[in-house]
């Protein structure tokens, strides 16, 4: 289980925790997010831009 971070605003998507508010349950793999997934906090960085930490 990894965590992926938005390089613009620091929002972190943890595969372990998911993002309940956005409707991604715990255990959601980052790779399974939609291709047009935009950062839920800043919306100006996309799935491709996220960095694994």
């Amino acid at each position, binding site marked *: 289980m990894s965590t992926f971070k938005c390089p*613009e*605003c620091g929002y972190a998507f943890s595969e372990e925790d998911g993002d309940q508010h956005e*409707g*991604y349950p715990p255990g959601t793999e980052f790779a399974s997010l939609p291709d047009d997934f*935009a950062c839920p906090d*800043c*919306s*100006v960085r996309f799935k491709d831009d996220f960095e694994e930490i």
Partner: protein
Amino acid sequence: MKGYTATLENGEAIFYQDRKRWFWLLSVLYPIQAFLGIWLHAKTGNEAWLLLPLALTYIGAPSLDWILGEDQNNPPEAVVLQLDRDPYYRWLTYIVVPLHFLALIGAAWWVGTQDLAWWSFIGLSVIAGIASGLGINTGHELGHKKSKLERNLAKIVLAVPAYGHFWIEHSRGHHRDVATPDDPASARMGESIYKFALREIPGAFRRAWNIEQERLTRREKSVWSSDNQILQSLAITVALQLGLIIAFGWKLIPFLIIHNVFAWWQLTSANYIEHYGLLRQQDDNGKYERCLPRHSWNSNHIYSNLVLFHLERHSDHHAHPLRRYQSLRHFPDLPTLPNGYFGMYVIAYVPFLWYLVMDKRLLALPHVAGDLSKVNVDPSKRQALMQKYGQAQ
């Protein structure tokens, strides 16, 4: 005045004071200017005073921007973190939230309890709408932040102009699609503000609703559930506006209709001038380039920036949407408006004047250099504009 100290990488110590610190109070006081007209009406008995805020906004603000000019000062990057953490700036955005409610209730009380002539009734309704339009600006500053408190305050204040969907629409929709033909909140070259409003207002609502529906579907909830954030804000709007009708009578129905429309019109006006004609390029796969500073129009005019929480430093806002208003920066060589927002609104309301001022300015931008293929053009005006400016695609 409070100062911030930092040490640069080369060991040099710097000290910074924000000269605008106390002047940001203007963003807090500006929304309650209806009370100035009400007070003068009460004191003199002359209803014309009720219209004073209209003159302050559409004559006073552009004049002050012209007289006071621009401010290009930026805080040094080394103190930005301290500036962002200074609670004073944050508190101003909190305090203004109840003032937006007070402004609407105050204006409603006056039209509901005074026997006003039709023209001052309409005038005060419009002024209340402008004040609530500034509430969208307050909701904008708050809604971009990560803290739960600020996000909740954004949803609450957006209930005043009956525009609760803005919080979702703006961050998730507009920031993602800005300066593309897909964005209902980015104006196209040759599109008048009136035509734009008919595309923007319903288009923005539809986009917000779809985004919220997708989120709720992922959560296996109905779009009509109480978790729908648009409906949550709308519930506050209904309670507030119904309460005003019950308290002050049927006269509040036309008042609130005019108020709501003019509040939305404030956002339409800002959206219209912020990205007029600007276009992000697509790569071979159709993917748009990242939003760059050249994809927003800016103004450094000091007065209107001080009453709008620095909204006019728009390029930095789109590049870094979470950056707080006190830290937004000016950069050289950005697309620049010749006056502040209020002056540009007045020009936008007269379309031929807007085209006269802006079209040449747009085509003269270094990254456009007269090439209409690099401009977001209204499809119905493309041919006429190509003929006028002599460009081949």
